[in-house]
């Protein structure tokens, strides 16, 4: 039987505010446990929440960037459940009147097509603390520093039909919130967490099947794997004539396994009611226009500009514009090295490979855009060969030296581009290889000829101590061998 896959996402986005959503406690990452958990966050009796204006501003910016209606009057509800990392016994969230109403985001797919994914709404809420299950004499440890960190939860319509589309949407959303500067996008620290709702229905059927929710996926790779895993699980059950149970599941990416979170289901009676501690929040035109004025260039506009301004192809422009920090790095590189295609290749090649290998973000790169730009300039003006440039890059990365020209001098990487000197080297080498020259000249197949040129390059590079400009050597060789 053929099945249609239906996917909807819920994404928790941690907002990059300095303080919590309802208290003046710092949200800085990495503090000692519970040093940023104060009376309001700990739900001490007699405390009252006061909402953070910046959290509303960021939520409104998100709404404007996703073509959404802004909730001019929004309110908070209490979602009641019992868990020790939630000191109040309820999460303060929005249900009936969220700050961001229906909107949409367009995603680019690998086949070149574009798909619109509708956003049902996005609401403001508070994050919970963290439970540490290492053994503390048979007890669990609770760190409430994260409790009260502002989140927006983005809820999509079930508009995605493949894992590729879901991941493309997730990446687009990541790109949007980091470009807006409302989230640091650091998924390894839980700044963005994805819940995936999946159901299957017979191909072409109008009726949606029973869905399951796989919670707390914190990487694009795990998300893709979890979707494939869940689709297969549901398909096996349905094709054996079984039925899908509506449930929450946990996916273990390291083992590619999932299991039901039954305890969560039993407690799934949240008894929402309006929070009596908080009045309705009214957002006026001035607030919205102020938020609009703060919108930076968004990924779609940036991609179009990269193609237009720097002549990049669609793929390069897409990669370099997607991540705000990578885009800024690219433009910093270009300020110091004008060749956009060369800069794009180096950033997507050597630079990204090294970041990935060392699991570093662009912000943690040991080399700056200015340094890479200086290197690009020296490649473009033929001062160094690409092989020499890799050595310069290594020296910059390891911190051996921070100046491109100084490295080129110190390591003797400067290419010889003086055609007179190169020509006499070619003459010398060719004189010593008469057989190969004769063989080349009697060969008619241009492909084989081209290949045979390589046989001369080795001795030439040796004669020039690796400093001859390979491109010029090549030109001179072809000319001289033609007789």
């Amino acid at each position: 039987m053929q099945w249609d896959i239906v996917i909807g996402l819920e994404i928790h986005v941690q907002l990059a505010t300095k303080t919590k959503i309802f208290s003046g406690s710092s949200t800085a990452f990495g503090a000692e446990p519970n040093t940023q958990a104060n009376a309001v966050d700990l739900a001490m009796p007699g405390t009252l929440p006061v909402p953070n204006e910046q959290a509303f501003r960021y939520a409104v910016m998100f709404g404007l960037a996703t073509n959404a209606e802004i909730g001019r009057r929004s309110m908070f509800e209490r979602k009641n459940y019992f868990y020790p990392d939630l000191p109040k016994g309820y999460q303060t969230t929005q249900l009936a009147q969220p700050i961001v109403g229906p909107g949409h985001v367009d995603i680019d797919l690998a086949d070149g097509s574009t798909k619109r994914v509708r956003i049902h709404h996005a609401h403001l809420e508070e994050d919970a603390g963290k439970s540490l299950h290492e053994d503390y004499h048979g007890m669990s440890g609770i760190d409430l520093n994260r409790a009260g960190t502002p989140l927006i939860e983005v809820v999509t319509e079930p508009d995605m039909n493949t894992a590729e589309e879901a991941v493309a949407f997730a990446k687009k959303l990541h790109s949007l919130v980091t470009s807006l500067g409302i989230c640091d996008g650091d998924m390894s620290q839980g700044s963005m967490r994805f819940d995936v709702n999946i159901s299957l229905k017979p191909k072409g059927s109008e009726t949606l099947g029973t869905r399951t929710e796989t919670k707390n996926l914190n990487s694009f790779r795990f998300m893709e794997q979890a979707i494939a895993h869940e689709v297969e699980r549901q398909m096996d059950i349905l094709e054996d004539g079984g039925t899908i149970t509506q449930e929450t599941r946990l996916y273990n990416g390291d083992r590619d396994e999932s299991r039901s979170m039954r305890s969560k289901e039993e407690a799934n009676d949240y008894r929402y009611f309006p929070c009596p501690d908080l009045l309705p929040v009214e957002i006026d035109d001035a607030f919205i226009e102020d938020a609009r004025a703060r919108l930076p260039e968004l990924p779609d506009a940036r991609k179009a500009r990269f193609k237009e301004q720097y002549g990049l192809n669609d793929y390069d422009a897409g990669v370099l514009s997607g991540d705000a920090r990578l885009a800024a790095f690219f433009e910093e590189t270009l300020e110091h090295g004008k060749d956009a295609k060369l800069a794009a290749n180096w950033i997507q090649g050597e630079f990204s490979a090294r970041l990935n290998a060392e699991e570093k973000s662009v912000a943690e790169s040991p080399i700056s855009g200015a340094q890479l730009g200086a290197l690009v300039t020296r490649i473009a003006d033929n001062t160094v060969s690409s092989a020499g440039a890799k050595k310069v890059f290594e020296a910059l990365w390891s911190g051996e030296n921070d100046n491109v020209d100084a490295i080129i001098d110190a390591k003797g990487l400067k290419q010889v581009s003086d055609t007179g000197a190169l020509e006499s080297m070619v003459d010398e080498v060719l004189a010593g290889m008469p057989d190969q020259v004769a063989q080349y000249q009697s060969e008619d197949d241009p492909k084989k000829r081209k290949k045979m040129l390589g046989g001369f390059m080795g001795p030439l590079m040796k004669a020039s101590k690796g400093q001859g400009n390979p491109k010029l050597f090549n030109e001179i060789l072809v000319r001289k061998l033609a007789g």
Partner: protein
Amino acid sequence: MSISRADIEKVAVLARIKVDGEQVSALEKDLGNILDLVDQLSAADTDSVEPMAHPLDAVQRLRPDVVTETNQREAFQSIAPATEDGLYLVPKVIE
């Protein structure tokens, strides 16, 4: 309006309150009376009344995003039953 034993038992579980059989019978009667009292409100015609978010006719004041709290962990943890390495300790919670 009445409340069933099953409702009471479910709410007790959700609220993590231990209620024994006799107490359930007493609560069935007491909570039933309270709900009956509240139920009298449904006699009022509210068709043309917008649901109220809050009894005060006011809007929420927002706070600037400035850190105002300092670390008072020691004071807070002095009243906690168990702490270690700066963490609050609670009975094991693992799924």
